[in-house]
């Protein structure tokens, strides 16, 4: 994602936004996240429609403890993201690099954990097409996993730019915008974990 450099020219173009306290890149990202709320909400509504009206005994095969630990991993990755942002806001480039690396590792660990959960269910014969439970479980968690994967790629490209000294104490908007996406994906998982595993 390109970094917004602040030439006087550009500052003039977005003066109306500055007066309102709205950075245009952050505004764009929040608007996009609003649409993602509706997208995941649509999938979640479908999932809950089936879960409540067609409950399945297969849900007892879900491993709450293991996936709960995985939830903890993703929450930790949100912490590393925000600590990375705090680091570059004080000009600590190496801190940013360290925290971004930690985020990537934690995000990958989360996906590995999810893969493990998927494999366990698969061994019990639950697939996308085996049952309505399988269809809705794998679709909902699968799309979340895809979003995590996209986030990891974005984190990697942010890391590469950080390694090239692309961010500084005066210029870190790209890190913040990436963070918004990552935290959102974390929030979606918080909701999914509750609706799929807990209730």
């Amino acid at each position, binding site marked *: 994602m390109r970094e917004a450099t602040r030439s006087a020219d550009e500052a003039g173009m977005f003066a109306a936004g500055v007066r309102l306290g709205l950075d245009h890149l952050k505004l764009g990202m929040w608007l996009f996240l609003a649409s993602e709320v509706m997208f995941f909400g649509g*999938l979640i*509504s479908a999932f809950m429609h089936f879960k409540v009206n067609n409950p399945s005994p297969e849900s007892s095969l879900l491993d709450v403890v293991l996936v709960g630990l995985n939830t903890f991993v993703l929450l930790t990755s949100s912490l590393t993201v925000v600590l990375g942002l705090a680091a570059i806001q004080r000009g600590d480039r190496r801190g940013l690099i360290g925290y971004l690396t930690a985020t990537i590792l934690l995000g990958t660990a989360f996906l590995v954990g999810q893969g493990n959960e998927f494999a366990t269910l698969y061994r019990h014969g639950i697939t996308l097409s085996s049952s309505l439970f399988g269809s809705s479980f794998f*679709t909902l968690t699968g799309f979340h996993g895809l979003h995590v994967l996209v986030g990891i790629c974005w984190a990697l490209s942010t890391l590469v730019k950080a390694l090239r000294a692309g961010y500084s104490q005066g210029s870190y908007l790209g890190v913040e915008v990436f963070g918004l996406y990552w935290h959102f994906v974390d929030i979606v998982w918080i909701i999914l974990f509750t609706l799929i595993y807990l209730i």
Partner: protein
Amino acid sequence: MSMSTEAVTPGRGWRRYFTWNTDHKVIGVQYLVTTFCFFLIGGLLAMLVRAELAQPGPDFLNGTEFNRFLTNHGSVMLFLWIIPVLAGFGNYLVPLMIGARDMAFPNMNALSFWLIPPAGLIMLASFFVGAAEAGWTAYAPLSIQTPVGQTLWAVSVIILGTSSLLGAVNFVTTVFTMRAEGMTFWRLPLFVWGMLATSLLVLLATPVLTAGLVLIAMDRMAGTLFFSASNGGDPILWQNMFWFYSHPAVYIMVLPAMGIVSEVYPVFSRKPIFGYKAIAMSSMAISILGLTVWAHHMFTSGMDPRLRIPYMISSMIIAVPTGIKIFSWLATIWDGKIRFTTPMLFALGFISMFLIGGITGIFLAAIPIDVHVHDTYFVVAHLHFVLFGGSVSAVYAGLYYWFPKITGRMYDERLGKVHFVANFVGTNLTYLPMFLAGLLGMPRRVSDYSPEFTTLNLLATLGAFLLGTSALPFIYNAVVSWVSGPKAAANPWRALTLEWQTDSPPPAENFHQPPVVNSGPYDYGQPMGVSGQAQAVPAVGD
């Protein structure tokens, strides 16, 4: 960061319209021309359908072929024409109208456009592998069982939804962060308010359709069971997910159009718009209410009966802000010094025909009536009066109105009037008989019908062919005028909004100097603001 301008773009003249260009004016023209081509394709499909329906009994299409032409007529017209053409107007006009140099995200803007041609090709390519045939509404389980073209249809609509969504992000960000100095929200032209209201719906509703289409695609390709009733799935879930988007979609298809006519009426009545704030707020009200009414498309689906009356009430309430707008427009032109130019004629046609469509919509909101006319030609007539009589009239009004600004040349006014008359007569001739046919019981989406409907169908087919022919003077006018029409002034209509206070066509950076706004968009007697370009201020009382 540098702004892409025409000077940086490869190629000159017409060639740049075939490239990745981030200038919103180029992208706007790309949208307008591309979507118009899809309009013609959708129209061709319609005329094939009407040719088959001119007489009862099979003529030259069997049932499956008929369903495919019908499905793609609707899908092309909605997803590849009316929604994106209005986004195209938004693209061209919003930055100019707010005094900005371009949109907030120029590269994403180009992406929004360039998603459209491949999506269109995918949808049309489906004809080679068994086109989608389940109607534009793609109800399950039929849409799960049809040949592979249906999957292409779903993929195409997902891509087009993404294009629309990215556009909405761009519009909202642009309006909030790039207005010129002095351009407060209450000085925004009403077209911009229309685009804001539309963008709200696009952001909130489109993703739910995307989610539903994903489920359809997965049922078709991955063997999932979402809509397979025998396995616990629920076809009604698709109807809910589909209509949650597709009802707001009809407001996406009309709010920018209402914005266009809101621009046209004051200029050609030489009067300020009546009820500026009422119109602006009504647009937002229609938008918000539009998210709450979708199940009125499902009254006969077996939906929970306790919910039917609430949906009926909310559907009828939308008539209130709509009525406020219509009365405001009428009050605008009342006692005005009216110039019956082609854009004004189409805008006046809009009011009359949208009114017919809108009022019949209220009939449909009443459950007892809907139960009787659901899935009949009454609905077909209603939707075409709002979409064709309404939105398309407004699109034509906009194309003529901003033609000199976009091309720098003036169209031929006489040909424009010929187009208007043929279009107005054709629209009424095509769709008025359909109200009667529906009330008398003719179902929609049928390739054959009982002989007592023959006369009505013949009239509709004649009207359809008149409509098809009526596009010809427009195409001729547009092409010839663009190439060799008389050069247009910066402000041939003596309008006040900012796009008219710069050259025709505008320079790459839109304004030679950033405008400073110090009055409203329809305050006759003084232009909105002064750009670097010297403009004679119209004399008071002009």
